């Protein structure tokens, strides 16, 4: 009793102190002491470790066969569309393919997959001798992959093909001790974070998985072939707003100006000037800017220096690894090399896509190889499958001549291939790729299938409606196509839905070329989104979030109650009937220190509507946009944020506070914040026609 009262007195004493400066310091010290015990994110696992009688979505039945488990129905779409895997391969050589979405044949699945190609090729080598069991899964990280590896001996494989490495940029691997080291100095926090990730965490992840494969070999007698993944080095552009973390020298304004210049040079083919400018950018950002490195790489490519171009393009790809900025999947050079080293050390065969996809000129791979960042196009799937098949035949002592002659003819129907390109167009758009990349896929779809226009119309319908897409009849109709059904499956229907799809819509309309879709789209937008009777919230995803990353606020941490702009411009789509003026109310503020002479500008369809002084406290603007400035259908309301300095000191404080809490920081400079943005046709002056 006495002890209890005493300890309570002590506790209350600390609280008393905590209310003043001394106590705050004490709490700070305590928080610092906690950091080494932290995990930044829960170590993920795609499926809980279960009984050995369950692998992926398949469950072993009494007869020893593996049946798809109805209890895992929501997960079926992530795996091969295969109801049963026989328990015993019989006389056939069983090949297990374990991997991620690239190995799944994302976009082509289930019409054509690498596993199907591999089986077909092996069948050419020796009919009926091989069976390929496809255990590749989309949305799987290293923890999930290891789980599959650990269970796979139960399938009695003779050969294991392991094709993974794109999904390992997982912050669940960080420990508090890493965080302590990252925070140990005042400067170069991001550089240290990336260094630790690439030199320690990623190799350790790779070694753990390869060790798992060795155990699988030991348990089953199988031998392993490791596929080293390659990436779309030339054509994949990280989302512009996510390409540069906070810089410590407050040099974002200078860097942005150089970026604009360098991109201009590149567009004009002035590679030397581009190279020099990008080098200056890279000096400013100390190698953290993916875009600086990429511009150097592209200018070297333009000059024909393939070897150096590859080096810089790889550096650009790897620039954000280990930095808490969400990016598209990728396999950094460190992981590729670790896979090679581990494979050699363990006597495993390797299919190295880096070699496979480098042409005779040494040019790094581009959009002719990839559908997006890491998912292969049809020919690249054939190439990889043939390379794997060659290794298998060599191991099994089978003739490989037929493999060389295999062309893949008939593996996929043109209309399915067209659909794969339509889905790729959507994926590219939702990962922030430019118009040219999105249009490329739409056009390819038209080339492959003259009737694709009907599909485009269905897509425009569910993309443009207010209703969740799974509620749309057009979506139900489109999903009758098995490729579309796989890619567009409603998943968690409350989470994975509406985007600001004007860029994709434009590409579909242009590729269709009939002119009819354009007016159809315009009228649909007006019917669905023009609401003269009520204010429209322009911060809804459908009016402002073009990409997955923007939906998540470009952060791995908590998403605030307001919109944050990670680029100089915030574009919001306002649908107008072309007749009513519209009142717009914006509550906004900036985070940085405003540069002299700078102000916030509102542009309507590219024309400056008004400029305003803005500060670091919220203020509300009431604007009226005249009907004459608006066109029927979608209009772009652009908020152009003023040029600012972004004080590193404040960012460092925020970063430390987040990390000390085990919370992911936001690592990008914030150009502006919007708490409210509503458009109200009632507040505008009606213009009679």
């Amino acid at each position, binding site marked *: 009793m006495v002890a209890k009262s005493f300890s309570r007195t002590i506790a209350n004493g600390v609280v008393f102190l905590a209310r003043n400066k001394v106590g705050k310091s004490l709490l700070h010290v*305590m928080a610092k002491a906690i950091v080494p015990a932290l995990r930044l994110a829960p170590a993920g696992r795609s499926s809980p470790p279960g009984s050995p009688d369950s692998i992926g979505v398949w469950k072993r039945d009494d007869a020893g066969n593996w049946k798809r488990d109805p209890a895992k129905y929501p997960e079926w779409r992530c795996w091969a569309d295969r109801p049963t895997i026989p328990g015993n391969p019989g006389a056939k050589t069983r090949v297990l393919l374990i991997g991620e979405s690239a190995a799944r044949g994302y976009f082509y699945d289930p019409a054509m997959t690498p596993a199907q190609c591999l089986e077909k090729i092996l069948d050419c080598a020796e009919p009926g001798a091989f069976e390929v069991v496809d255990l590749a899964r989309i949305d799987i990280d290293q923890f999930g992959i290891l789980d599959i590896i650990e269970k796979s001996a139960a399938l009695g494989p003779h050969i294991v093909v392991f094709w993974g490495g794109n999904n390992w940029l997982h912050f669940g691997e960080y420990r508090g001790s890493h965080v302590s080291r990252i925070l140990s100095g005042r400067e170069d926090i991001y550089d240290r974070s990336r260094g630790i990730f690439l030199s320690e965490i990623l190799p350790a992840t790779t070694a753990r998985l390869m060790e798992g494969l060795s155990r699988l070999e030991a348990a089953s007698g199988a031998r392993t072939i490791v596929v080293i993944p390659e990436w779309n080095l030339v054509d994949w552009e990280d989302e512009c707003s996510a390409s540069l973390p906070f810089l410590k020298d407050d040099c974002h304004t200078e860097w942005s100006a150089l970026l604009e210049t360098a991109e201009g040079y590149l567009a004009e083919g002035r590679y030397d000037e581009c190279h020099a400018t990008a080098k200056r950018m890279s000096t400013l950002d100390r190698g953290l800017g993916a875009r600086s490195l990429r511009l150097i790489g592209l200018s070297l490519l333009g000059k024909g220096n393939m070897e150096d171009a590859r080096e810089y393009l790889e550096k650009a790809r790897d620039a954000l690894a280990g930095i808490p900025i969400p990016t598209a999947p990728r396999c950094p050079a460190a992981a590729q090399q670790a896979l090679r080293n581990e494979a050699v050390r363990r006597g495993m065969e390797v299919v190295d896509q880096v070699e496979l996809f480098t042409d005779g000129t040494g040019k790094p791979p581009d959009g002719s190889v990839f559908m997006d960042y890491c998912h292969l196009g049809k020919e690249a799937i054939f190439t990889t499958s043939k390379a794997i098949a060659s290794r298998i035949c060599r191991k099994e002592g089978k003739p490989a001549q037929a493999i060389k002659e295999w062309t893949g003819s008939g593996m996929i129907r043109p209309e399915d291939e067209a659909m794969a390109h339509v889905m790729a167009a959507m994926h590219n758009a939702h990962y922030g790729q430019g118009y040219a990349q999105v249009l490329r896929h739409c056009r390819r779809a038209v080339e492959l299938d003259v009737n694709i226009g009907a599909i485009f119309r269905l897509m425009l319908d569910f993309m443009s409606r207010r209703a969740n897409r799974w509620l749309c009849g057009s979506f*139900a109709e489109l999903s009758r196509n098995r490729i579309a059904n796989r890619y567009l499956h409603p998943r968690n229907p409350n989470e994975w839905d509406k985007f600001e799809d004007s860029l994709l819509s434009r590409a579909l309309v242009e590729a269709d070329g009939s002119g009819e879709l354009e007016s159809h789209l315009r009228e649909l937008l007006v019917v669905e989104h023009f609401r003269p009777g009520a204010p429209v919230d322009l911060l809804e995803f459908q009016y402002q979030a073009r990409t997955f990353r923007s939906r998540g606020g470009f952060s791995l941490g908590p998403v605030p109650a307001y919109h944050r702009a990670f680029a100089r411009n915030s574009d919001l789509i306002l649908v107008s009937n072309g007749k009513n003026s519209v009142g717009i109310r914006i509550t906004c503020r900036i985070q940085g220190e405003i540069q002299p002479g700078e102000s916030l500008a509102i542009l309507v369809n590219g024309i400056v509507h008004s400029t305003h002084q803005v500060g670091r406290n919220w203020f509300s603007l009431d604007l009226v946009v005249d009907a004459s400035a608006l066109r029927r259908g979608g209009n772009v309301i652009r908020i152009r944020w003023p040029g600012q300095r972004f004080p590193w000191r404040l960012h460092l404080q925020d970063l430390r506070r987040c990390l000390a809490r085990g919370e992911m920081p936001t690592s990008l400079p914030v150009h502006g914040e919007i708490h409210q943005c509503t458009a109200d046709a009632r507040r505008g002056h009606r213009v009679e026609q």
Partner: protein
Amino acid sequence: MTKTVLGISAHYHDSAAAIIVDGELLAAAQEERFSRKKHDPAIPSKAVRYCLEAAGKSIDQVDRVAYYEDPYEKLGRNLWMLTRSVSNANPAFLLALDPRRPGSDIRRLIGYEGPIRYYGHHLSHAASAYFFSGFDKAAIMVVDGVGEWQTLSLYKAESGRIQLLEDVSFPHSIGLLYGTITAYLGFEVNDGEYKVMGLAPYGKPHYADRIRKLIKDSAGGAFRLDMSYFDFLKNKRMYSEKFVRLMGRAPRQKEAPLTEFWMDVAKSLQCVLEEIILEKVRHLHKLFPCDNLCMAGGVALNCVANGRVRRDGPFRDLFVQPASSDAGSSLGAAALAYSEIDPSWKPGIAMDHVYLGPSFTDESIRDLLGAGDCGALDFQDSERELFREVAATLGQGKIIGWFQGRMEFGPRSLGARSILADPRGGDMRDRINALVKKREAFRPFAPAVLEEYASEHFEMTRPSPFMLETCRVVSSLDLPAITHVDGSARVQTVTHAQNRKFAGLLEAFRERTGCPILLNTSFNMRGEPIVCTPSEAILCFIRARLDCLVLGNFVLHRNRIPERWIEWFGNTYPERFEGVSNSVYTFL
């Protein structure tokens, strides 16, 4: 000049936001309804956005944010817990010690720049009941697991001023006593307490004496537990080995059969709880003799005990805050802050509804349903026809999802987001428990009844709009689906003034069947927050295999919806997120 106050509760059990503008409570909602994470404790950024939108305010127009807890006081309790057991020193626990976190989250994640006021956890609960009770003078009792230190507090209030009379400090807690036995019974702590209450009528109070042994002293305003029976200070599990020895049986495993023993334990606990609550209420009346009692805190959701307080307690009138859990504290904090910036503000008329959440117009529902061919029937032109159609469907023994108007604030579905059925069906309770809600078979359902017919069917003398008390079923009708094994029911009375459409449906059902009562349960599946939006309602309708869905003035029958919807979602369940621990009370 307009005055606007935003109340926030977060970082504990159920985060929520509420907004008061010019003395009027305009909106309130729990974060879980938007984030779809049950008991979401995160800073309620989505709920705040909703409240601002509903009030037509922007963040720069908010005069004050009121936070429902004193983070420094809570730090003291958490530090004290550290001294009790070093096993508490895990990173999550230690991180939660930062008393600056609520303030910094309100700045960072809500974006609020103005003044923030912090009020005690129990004071916020007390205010949530008092300021919305309609009483000028009242005694207030707050009982829950624990706030900062307080676990039971007794207040008096008059003319808008609340004053603490007595309190009981952690770890001696009536709520944690209840939570401990909830855990022993194999139910989820922080969530399964109401299951214990539902199980109790199946049992006999054979173990009441053993449970009384857990309490060292409960005379007057005191309450002391014998801590040797409890392990919750170690933050691992609720009960100690000594407790298990006392009860003479190992704890029940989750989903294990509920035999007589477990039912008797539940009954014993309920009896002891009622004894204690009555004792405290009588003590409070001695401290502050007046007519009115207000109650709040998680234990105030025990409607069986509330019924005892009304029947056997010394107060003439009782008001229980319908959102009695931590979510409701956002209301209380907002009210406290508002009464500071406008000292002339006093409790006005009693809160008579909790429809404070988002609503959706027929136009928006039509757009949703019109996007595809789902065979929806449109009754926009005739509400009367809508009621007839739905009443006929209910009369055929069908189970319907009912989605109307503004969402309820608090844990109960009260006819805005409800699953409804005919209470007369012999198998209706089992059907809904097993097929629709996929939950334990013993759990009873509540009736909703037109207020004017309530006394014909239930032994009640006053309205019960919030389903917060139980009473005896005295109906001449056979009502097996809503009558608990002890002949009681947890009744909601409905009037046209409070909920016009729900009352209209009840009236239509009465006209058709002679029964003015409907079975009313929350519109969700097990482990999922109650639905908020029309699309969530449609999804739940598909997953829970409801026969019919009424969305505003539109009706969907299951046999007419697209097959694809059933193919996509028919065999799926909502993703489950647990905002709080299920094995030990969440103290952070």
